[in-house]
């Protein structure tokens, strides 16, 4: 018999979105518990570096409408325009609120929040780069995570740390809670709630080169998918252009915001060819593709599969002078503005970015797709925006969709605070009028049998073999560039791996206390399910848009594909899904509410 807890609201995950939601639900009077597999400060929000976008206009003239435009264009017009407008408008107030919570932003000469340039952020509808990213050195995410955790402590939010949520409980058409495994004891706990918000982050560990933490295994997405909640736009996964070569550790776009440039093996600043107007500050999908194309032409450094990111003052100043800018940078500026980046490169590469260029390659970074929600954080389960009562999602695991086919830099942090806050507010209102829907009998039994199967597994295949095989095939065939045969091969491979996962798994640790062997194996099941539906969604979308770049369908096709993909498991359970074709439909139209009033938001060719 599991331990049963009852709260008005459960928040799953303690990154920026989860903490913001928990804070607002608590402030709104709800009794809230945050259930997280990590201590909150270990969450991946903490690794975000360069900044949080908001049209404060502290250094350059700026407007929310311009931010919304960049977000829509950056998303290659798959962005729901109502969501983009909410994001851009509420970003301002959200950033001010973070400052009021004590967040130590860097300051301008006047003592205001300092802002820097970032990829795809422009003034006046794409005219020129704008300083919009509000920053705290290159540890903006760290400061957001710390600040929100501090506020949760201040407001006495209840935390269940190191509790891994393994199933969502649905009953009578509503979400009534979750089942979690307490890592320290191995015991299962049932959390009974009126409202449950998923803020479990992304699944970059599907790919072999990633900026993502080991913990980013897409648990929340996978377990809700298994229970029949559709996943939206799974084919769109962002590859950030500048990961440290081979390791994937992120080098912030803020480096380019400060004037850093990408250089190929011929010593050329190649982004001039691909984005003549804003060059190295084009959207991430554009820059990642440009790097791949350079590598393909043999323009990697020393013929290898990487290029340089150069922020050494002589190089930066040379290009600033060429561009007619009066600004110059010094070694001291680089030290001051990018301390963590310098530390990563010095520790991991033995390279000093003040004196030498950094070897970089694109790295799997961010899920644009995920659990579909409306702008209030409510989960919606079909093309008609039908709400699943009691279930909410926010942050990377959610798909509002404010990022469309490609997220702009800084907008993930904006998403966390804006939609985390909206989710928290919506929950506070909901739980005031909603009653507890009863738990079904033996709510934990099904997932308990899956956990037991893994604990006792005695086949021949170790989890890491399956994981590495999946990561390799997804990197090669469902990465920056894709085409039909390759995706189909990847899908086959993933399905073979899934079969082995279910029939031939073997783990070593049979214990209950802190059995990370068991949890890693369970997480692998999540990754495999998500890899499979990513490949299926990618195979289905026969066009190139944003991060989904098909070599066999090179053009964007607004006639047929200005729609979201919804993929759904039609055999709901707590188990990793079997090998069968899920339902996939593209009936959900992209919201075009800005375009209907303003011609500038109508989809057009995307150049930078």
């Amino acid at each position, binding site marked *: 018999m599991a331990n049963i807890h009852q709260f008005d609201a459960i928040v799953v995950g303690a990154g920026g979105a989860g903490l913001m939601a928990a804070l607002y639900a608590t402030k709104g009077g709800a009794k809230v518990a945050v259930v997280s597999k*990590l201590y909150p400060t270990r969450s991946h929000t903490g690794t975000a570096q360069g900044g949080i976008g908001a049209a404060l206009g502290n250094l350059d003239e700026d407007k929310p409408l311009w931010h919304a435009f960049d977000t829509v264009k950056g998303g290659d017009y798959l962005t729901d325009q109502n969501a983009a407008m909410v994001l851009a408008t509420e970003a301002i107030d959200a950033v001010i609120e973070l400052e009021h919570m004590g967040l130590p932003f860097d300051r301008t000469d*006047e003592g205001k929040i300092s802002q820097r340039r970032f990829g795809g952020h422009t003034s006046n509808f794409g005219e020129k780069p704008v300083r919009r990213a509000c920053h705290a050195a290159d540890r903006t995410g760290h400061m957001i995570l710390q600040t929100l955790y501090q506020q949760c402590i201040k407001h006495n939010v209840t935390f269940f740390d190191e509790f891994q949520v393994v199933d969502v409980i649905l009953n009578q058409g509503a979400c009534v809670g979750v089942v979690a495994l307490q890592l320290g004891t191995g015991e299962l706990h049932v959390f009974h709630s009126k409202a449950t918000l998923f803020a479990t982050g992304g699944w970059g560990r599907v790919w072999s080169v990633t900026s993502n933490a080991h913990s980013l295994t897409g648990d929340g997405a996978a377990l809700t998918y298994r229970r029949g909640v559709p996943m939206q736009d799974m084919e769109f996964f962002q590859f950030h252009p500048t990961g440290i070569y081979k390791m994937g550790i992120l080098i912030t776009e803020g480096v380019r915001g400060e004037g850093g440039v990408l250089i190929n093996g011929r010593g050329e600043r190649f982004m001039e060819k691909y984005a003549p107007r804003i060059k190295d500050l084009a959207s991430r999908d554009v820059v990642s593709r440009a790097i791949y194309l350079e590598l393909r032409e043999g323009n990697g450094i020393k013929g290898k599969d990487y290029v340089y990111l150069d922020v050494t003052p002589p190089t930066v100043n040379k290009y600033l002078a060429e561009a007619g800018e009066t600004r110059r940078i010094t070694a001291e500026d680089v030290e001051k503005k990018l301390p963590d980046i310098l530390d990563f490169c010095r520790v991991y590469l033995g390279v000093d970015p003040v004196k030498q260029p950094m070897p970089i390659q694109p790295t799997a970074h961010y899920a644009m797709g995920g659990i579909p929600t409306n702008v209030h954080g409510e989960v919606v389960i079909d093309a008609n925006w039908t709400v699943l009562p009691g279930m909410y999602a926010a942050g990377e695991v959610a798909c509002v969709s404010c990022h469309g086919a490609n997220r702009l830099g800084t907008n993930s942090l904006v998403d966390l605070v804006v939609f985390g806050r909206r989710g928290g507010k919506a929950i506070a209102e909901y739980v005031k009028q909603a009653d507890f829907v009863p738990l079904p009998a033996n709510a934990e039994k099904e997932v308990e049998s899956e956990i037991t199967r893994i604990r006792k597994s005695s086949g021949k295949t170790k989890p890491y073999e399956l994981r590495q095989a999946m990561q390799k095939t997804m990197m090669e065939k469902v990465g920056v560039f894709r085409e039909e045969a390759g995706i189909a091969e990847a899908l086959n491979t993933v399905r073979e791996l899934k079969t082995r996962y279910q029939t031939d798994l073997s783990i070593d640790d049979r214990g209950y206390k802190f059995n990370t062997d068991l949890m890693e194996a369970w997480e692998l099941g999540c990754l495999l399910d998500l890899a499979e539906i990513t490949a299926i969604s990618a195979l289905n979308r026969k066009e190139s848009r944003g991060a989904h770049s098909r070599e066999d369908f090179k053009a964007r096709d607004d006639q047929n594909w200005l729609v979201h993909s919804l993929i759904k498991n039609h055999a709901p359970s707590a188990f990793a899904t079997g090998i069968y074709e899920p339902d996939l439909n593209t009936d959900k139209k992209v919201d075009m509410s800005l375009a209907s009033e303003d011609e500038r938001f109508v989809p057009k060719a995307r150049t930078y």
Partner: protein
Amino acid sequence: MDMKFRIRRFNPEAEEGKRKPYWQEFTLTGVEETDRILELLHRIKWEQDGTLTLRRACAHGICGSDAMRINGVNKLACKVLAKDVGEKVQIEPILGLPVLKDLVVDMEPFFAHYKSVLPYFINNSPEPERERLQTQHDRELYDDTTKCILCACCTTSCPSYWANGEYVGPAAIVQAHRFIFDTRDEGAQERLDVLADPNGVWRCRTIYNCTPACPRGIQVTRAIGEVKLAIVRGSPEGVITEGAGEIAVSNS
């Protein structure tokens, strides 16, 4: 290259009588000089012994999960490379917190100390419509201590903490420092009162282990010294000026 690991193990579920810590050796082949210790521990866990248990998340020194004693010194396993330690390495859990399993320790006492210093922004004045202004100079005063990732490397390297777990410890003081010296904050006095307690800053004997232990390069001992000086003076004002940290440290 080949590399030998000597790892401190503890299985809380071992049979009665065998339930005590022990050393176990592992050998890895094909190690590259630039491999992180964390990756190599993963290789041991994944390829050789799945029961080896540790915490980790981001793997690049930001999340603070994988603090451990590597050749006797507190480090994050993801920030130490094979070439930093050579062909033999000894790995133990951090000291001063109860070991739960292998390299995993009970972090609850650590977070309890953290929470005791009111580690959150306090300002009860009416909020302005826009951001509160702060000069670059004032922002700089507490910059160093905003880097803290709560990994516990400092606190669990401190002999005073080992001797007395009631001592609030360096990490909690660093977190308090971040607010005490923030000119926007109004809670300095309350925090100074907490830290003037016998288990507050005065348990610090300026042994200095904490500063080199910090994977974020925070001048921990200096920060503690500044808090001490603020307590002595009754106010944080004017404590941090050029070189004040060193004076505070040497006077304490």
